[in-house]
């Protein structure tokens, strides 16, 4: 094997130059405005942002989307115009036209550079206009693609009701009233760490330990609420509800909810668990600012991930999983036909949407060999359980550990791809066609973000995506035979 594939003792993490292609995090508006039905997303940025959204969103743009650009012009840049007045004018117009329940301001690179005080202006304008304004700084200076959702959900977590009830909530939470917590900065959150024993959980996250709850017995009146966070289609949310109900666990809410007015209650008595690997900021916010207890689990992607995810939630609630093994086995059986197509094949993740670790773990379990997992950003604490499962999966399947490359460099990656000649490269659209022309099979990574891939039921959809290029190759084999040349590349040398 090449020097890229040295056998390693354990998972290693590398970091390259960060010169890679990904979507701008403002693209999260495209799925979030659809998920949160009564929202309106206002992206405050330049023509560049607008043109990106217009092109990335494709036909969605023609369907009167509930999003718009507040396009900054030269007079805004040179501060000839007053930001507050301008935003007020636009927001009143939005209220007039659409009357949403919430307006989400998406701060961009430009507002960062101009140091536009969106967080400061929002509460003021909110009072004037009578519509909540949530500020998320989803910019390309700090974040990549799906992390945009993370910034929006972290901001929205601040708006969830505390649901102060008779018994369980202590006074420390009461200081966290809705509007107040919004404008303050995380450093003030230290005061909300109380000394109750359950808070050791919070520290355990920050001390880089995986969280393990002792299986406590909860009496029926004191069962902590379970709130799941991460935006997934309603159908998938229903599927999760049913899976957990089978284990006798109720989901008390989702962040985000289908409607802004239905945001879940969050307090000290809430267990939170993520469904997506790119939500580390939201997790931190939920723990530090809302005192929720975070369940660190692998993500419910693929039957293996879903089982581990449910098991972890069950263990926290002190329940013994019922019929989970059989359920997983049955799903694997139903997938066998697809798995046959990919077993023993190699895959290379160039990395652009942070789903890479979970997908790689699932594909290794399917019998694939993963050469490299490129990933924009790796929160090793938040993904701890997922990384552990990846490690275990590699050992179980007896394959070498993949190389995990944070902030990859696309140029170097392409030379590695040339050398390794993987059977499948999962990559962005910028590289897909050129790689195909060089006879390297690709799968467009963004599709994983927009497809239903969570839970037992949708495991097949992931495999459909992964096998599609391979099935296509099978179907057009005739074409390659027709060429009868050794080099089927479509690029002239």
């Amino acid at each position, binding site marked *: 094997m090449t020097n890229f594939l040295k056998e390693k003792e354990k998972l290693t993490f590398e970091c390259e130059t960060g010169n890679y292609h990904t979507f701008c995090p403002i693209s999260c508006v495209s799925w979030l405005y659809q998920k949160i039905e009564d929202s309106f997303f206002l992206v405050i940025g330049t*023509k560049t942002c607008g043109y990106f959204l217009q092109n990335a969103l494709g036909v969605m743009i023609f369907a009167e989307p509930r999003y718009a650009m507040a396009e900054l012009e030269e007079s805004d840049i040179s501060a000839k115009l007053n930001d507050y007045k301008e935003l007020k004018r636009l927001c009143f117009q939005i209220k007039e036209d659409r009357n949403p329940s919430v307006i989400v301001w998406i701060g961009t690179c430009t507002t960062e550079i101009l140091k536009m005080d969106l967080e400061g202006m929002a509460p003021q304008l909110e009072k004037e206009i009578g519509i909540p304004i949530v500020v998320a700084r989803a910019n390309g200076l700090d974040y990549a693609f799906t992390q945009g959702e993370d910034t929006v959900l972290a901001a929205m977590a601040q708006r969830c009701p505390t649901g102060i009830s008779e018994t369980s909530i202590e006074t420390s939470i009461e200081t966290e009233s809705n509007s107040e917590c919004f404008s303050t900065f995380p450093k003030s959150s230290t005061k909300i760490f109380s000394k109750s024993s359950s808070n050791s959980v919070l520290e355990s996250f920050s001390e880089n330990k995986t969280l393990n709850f002792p299986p406590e017995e909860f009496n029926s009146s004191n069962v902590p609420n379970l709130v799941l966070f991460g935006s997934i289609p309603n159908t998938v949310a229903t599927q999760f509800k049913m899976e957990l109900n089978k284990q006798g666990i109720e989901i008390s809410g989702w962040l985000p909810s289908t409607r802004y007015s239905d945001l879940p209650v969050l307090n000290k008595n809430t267990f939170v668990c993520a469904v997506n690997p790119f939500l580390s900021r939201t997790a931190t916010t939920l723990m530090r600012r809302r005192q929720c207890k975070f369940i660190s689990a692998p993500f419910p992607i693929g039957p293996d991930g879903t089982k581990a995810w449910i098991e972890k939630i069950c263990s926290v609630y002190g329940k013994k999983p019922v019929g989970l093994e059989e359920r997983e086995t049955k799903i694997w059986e139903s997938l066998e036909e697809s798995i046959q197509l990919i077993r023993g094949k190699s895959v290379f993740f160039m990395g652009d949407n942070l789903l890479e670790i979970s997908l790689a773990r699932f594909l290794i379990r399917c019998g694939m060999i993963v050469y490299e997992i490129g990933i924009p950003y790796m929160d090793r604490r938040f993904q701890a359980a997922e990384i552990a499962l990846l490690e275990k999966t590699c050992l179980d399947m007896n394959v070498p550990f993949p190389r995990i490359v944070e902030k990859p460099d696309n140029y170097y990656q392409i030379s590695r791809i040339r050398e390794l000649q993987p059977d499948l490269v999962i990559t962005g659209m910028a590289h897909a066609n050129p790689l195909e022309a060089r006879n390297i099979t690709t799968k467009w990574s963004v599709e994983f973000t927009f497809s239903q891939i969570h839970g037992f039921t949708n495991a097949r959809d992931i495999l459909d995506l992964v096998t599609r290029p391979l099935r296509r190759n099978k179907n057009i084999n005739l074409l390659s035979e027709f060429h009868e040349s050794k080099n089927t590349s479509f690029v002239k040398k």
Partner: protein
Amino acid sequence: MKLAYWMYAGPAHLGTLRVASSLKNVHAIMHAPLGDDYFNVMRSMLERERDFTPVTASIVDRHVLARGSQEKVVENISRKDKEEKPDLIVVTPTCTSSILQEDLQNFVNRALTFKDSQADVLLADVNHYRVNEFQAADRTFEQIVRFYIEKAKKENFVFEKTEKISANILGIFTLGFHNTHDCRELKRLLTDLGIEIHEILPEGGNVANFKNLPKAHFNIVPYREIGLMTANYLKNEFQMPYVSIPPMGILNTAQFIKEIEFLLKSEVFKENCGESAKKQIESILSKNFQNYIDEQTRFVSQAAWFSRSIDCQNLTGKRAVVFGDATHAACITKILACEMGIQVVCSGTYCKHDADWFIEQVTGFCDEILITEDHTQVGDMISRLEPAAIFGTQMERHVGKRLDIPCGVISAPVHIQNFPLGYRPFLGYEGTNQIADLIYNSFTLGMEDHLLEIFNGHDTKEIKKPQNLLDSSNSWSKDALEELSRIPGFVRGKVKRNVEKFARQQKKTNINLDVMFAAKEAVNA
């Protein structure tokens, strides 16, 4: 600030990137935050480009914000120089990075001082808040041409005219609306006239050949949007005349050819030519241009005959709206009005910067003129005028869908279907055929719809309607039905049948969510 959902012309750096990536062995480096390199996606997707787009970003992140780019841009330049060995590296700021007011020119200068640096390095000179994609492309193209001509001058390069009469084609470039097809058609037209093609730029051009531009006898600028600045520069510098009439439509093409004839006849032009070229002019002119135009118009192009045919008679007085970039909108307006007898109730363009030219072109050929970058104004205009057909961009196509008016796409911005694999020029005589088809098809479809409405459809037999959702032997639970309604309409029926089949096999009469999801797991229903 302005509220915007859609824009017709992209940001300035896109124009720069389009020019740079059209040229061979030229690399562009954007000073931009992560995610601003979606130009690569557009090029790879829309043009189905086989090669990696030669554009990389020198990423602006928090560190750059705090400390400035420092060595980063310079390092990126020299890295690309080593990796790709390009002839030229074009550095371009973006909207975002231009606010940082970093002295990019200084970085460029420093990169040039490296001893091992092979490439020329240029900083794209465009203001991101004042010009759009087209203007920036025009400007960048001129900048590169100027740079290489100045360089050649310094090297005492001799700008001799070619032996034979030749022309440059300026303004064919990547992601241009049907540009490659137009280019092929133009080449054919000029070859027919006995004129050699010297350089075609920027598409496929090599920077080493830029200095040869003045060797041609004249320039051809087929589109208003890009190339004019370069043509003007070459005119001022080398007294090179240019023809800037877009040869789109029968009349315009004829005018284009006549303009070339006129040029060849002029005394000033002859003075600049060598002996053999002078002889050649005589021989070219001895072929009667008027005859060529006649023959092409009557036999190669079907469009003139089409205008006489009964089909086209039916279009007389039909009302149409035209909107697009200046070149295409103006030409299509003239074609509709003069060549097909269609009433253009409104003609408009989003090229605000070229409004004067546009107004001059279409005045007299349409009832109203609309100059705007706001798609809602265009939409409102269309719904007010209720034309029988629209000729516009993808946005107008969707307005048409909403209002049930057919639309032919005649201009960027466009989708992937406007990068056809087949030969579809808009220019020249084959172009006239393509345009006639496009126009006619838009209208007939519209009329057909109308007739269907009047006579309640052709079919006397009732079309078998898909079964009603609620009507079936199985009973669906409320939440299962709700779930079913979330499935997109075009597959809903299939999913429903599959689930019911699965339920029968499982001997379950009541379909609830459990059964539904189990069906998906088992048979991918």
